[in-house]
């Protein structure tokens, strides 16, 4: 259990005079699901944005696969294998699954001398990526707006897997989904775990956290208020850490 994929040491972030994060130490192993808990404004999203290259830390070090790294943008973090899945912002609804999985990295072929994007191959590759998650779609040429919430999550996750992500950051993946769809997403997270990905899971839902995570890290006002192994903690204690009593 020493195969740490991602580690932060003493990460701080200040916006002007506001201290959004103070000396956050964090680690994530391959095949581990870590839930980030905390109230609004606790620093969860600032922290994940630093890991995913959206923000640069004011201080501290990020180590990825044992090497110190610094990402100058989300694209750099993605290229390295740190992928973020957003509930609402992940997909272009009017494109098909191929268009979404390959958005920004389209497969190209040639028509005579003209380059063109190869929609058929993109669809097939995308379908394979999603089949890995045990999700099967009956039609691949439809815009993803025609899919259910869980299927859409699968497309976003499939994209991450296809691009060899090793760390997946999931921001409220179950919000705005019906109960059966929530279960499907939980299953997806478990299958990511067995594939050896590290997952950082942000949720407001304690039941979800306890259902899929190995560990829960609680942030409060920009500092790590506590860290507990699931199985050795009850929800009340997590809530106490979150509100600071």
């Amino acid at each position: 259990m020493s195969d740490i994929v991602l580690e932060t040491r003493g990460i701080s972030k200040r916006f002007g005079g506001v201290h959004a994060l103070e000396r956050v130490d964090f680690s994530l192993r391959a095949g581990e699901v870590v839930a980030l808990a905390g109230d609004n404004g606790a620093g969860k999203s600032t922290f994940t944005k630093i890991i995913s290259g959206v923000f640069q830390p004011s201080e501290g070090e990020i180590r990825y696969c044992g090497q110190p790294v610094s990402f100058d943008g989300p694209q750099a973090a993605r290229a390295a294998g740190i992928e973020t899945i957003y509930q609402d912002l992940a997909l272009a609804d009017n494109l098909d699954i191929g268009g979404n999985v390959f958005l920004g990295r389209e497969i190209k072929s040639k028509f005579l001398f003209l380059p063109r994007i190869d929609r058929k191959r993109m669809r097939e590759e995308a379908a394979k990526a999603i089949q890995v998650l045990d999700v099967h779609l009956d039609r691949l040429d439809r815009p993803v707006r025609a899919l259910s919430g869980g299927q859409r999550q699968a497309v976003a996750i499939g994209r991450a897997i296809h691009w060899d992500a090793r760390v997946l950051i999931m921001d409220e993946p179950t919000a705005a989904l019906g109960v059966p769809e929530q279960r499907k997403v939980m299953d997806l997270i478990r299958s990511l775990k067995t594939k050896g990905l590290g997952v950082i899971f942000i949720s407001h839902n304690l039941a979800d956290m306890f259902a899929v995570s190995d560990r829960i890290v609680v942030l409060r006002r920009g500092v790590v208020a506590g860290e507990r192994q699931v199985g050795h903690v009850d929800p009340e204690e997590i809530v106490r850490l979150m509100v600071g009593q």
Partner: protein
Amino acid sequence: MTAAASTRHPPGSARGRRTLAALAAARAWIFLIVLLIVFEIWSQIAYGSTFLFSAFNIRSIAVFAVAPVLLGLGQTLVIISGGIDLSVGFTMGFAAVISAQVANSLGAVAGPGIGLLGGVVIALGATMIPGWINGVLVARLRVPPFIGTLGMYGVARGAAYLLANGTTVPVQNSWLTWLGNGRIIGIPAVVLIAGIVILIFHYALAETQFGQYTYAIGGNRQATLRAGVNVRRVTIILYMLSALTAGIDGILYTGRFAAGAPQAGEPLLLDSIAAVVIGGASLFGGSGTIIGTIIGALIIAVIQYGLVFLNVEPFWQFIAVGLVIIVSVLVDQSQRRLGGGRQDE
């Protein structure tokens, strides 16, 4: 259709829905065909002559359609990306005036060929200024496209009138007027030029990464940004392309009427937007095709030319085009309620 899909709806209604959706998707074609049939019958009954099977009529409609098609090409891209370009009409006038003046003054010194070349290059180059400013306003400064391009509508209008000294600039360049009125193997040069531009735009939108990003930006700008696409750059190029098609349109207008008029594109702005919408694009962005816009522009051209041909009071054109727009949007909305459909390409 596989078993998994048909379990969602009862089989009978699924087939009905698919038929309806297919009809809705093809509505622009259906409109056009119905329109042609109606005008043909009308013409046969009222005048005992054909409307459709006349080379003269077909050529006239094609020439009629060139102006809204060209404006509509750039407009299609901008609308798919979730924007709109209200400045195209006067960007067209701006280019019309510049091409007339350069063709005249340079042509007087260096001959009509150089005059034409200079007029085309300088007019198109000049349209890149309003196009680039529109793009920067929308992409970088996040000005709502409706407002930013409305401002440019005023600026381009004023600039065009100032350059033309408030009047229309007559053209003394035989090459430029040939461009507007000449024919190659029976096909008007303006139609051929429009055809080439159409092919290029269709290819760019349907087959390239640039086209895919145009759809993606209209579908979900945030997601496109997060996917690492240079959304700003694509958006700026879109508005520059819109200005470019307006510029080509302005030059062809100048050639056709042997005069560079600042108000050349004034009545065409709404026609261009109408062509895009009738062609199946959503004003909310994310959908639309070049072929759809061409059909939309042809519908407008057939109505306008056909009603004149049939001796109907010209004001009926506005009513007819307006009704087609409304019906088209209604069909579009009911289709969206049915959900799904194919990816727009």
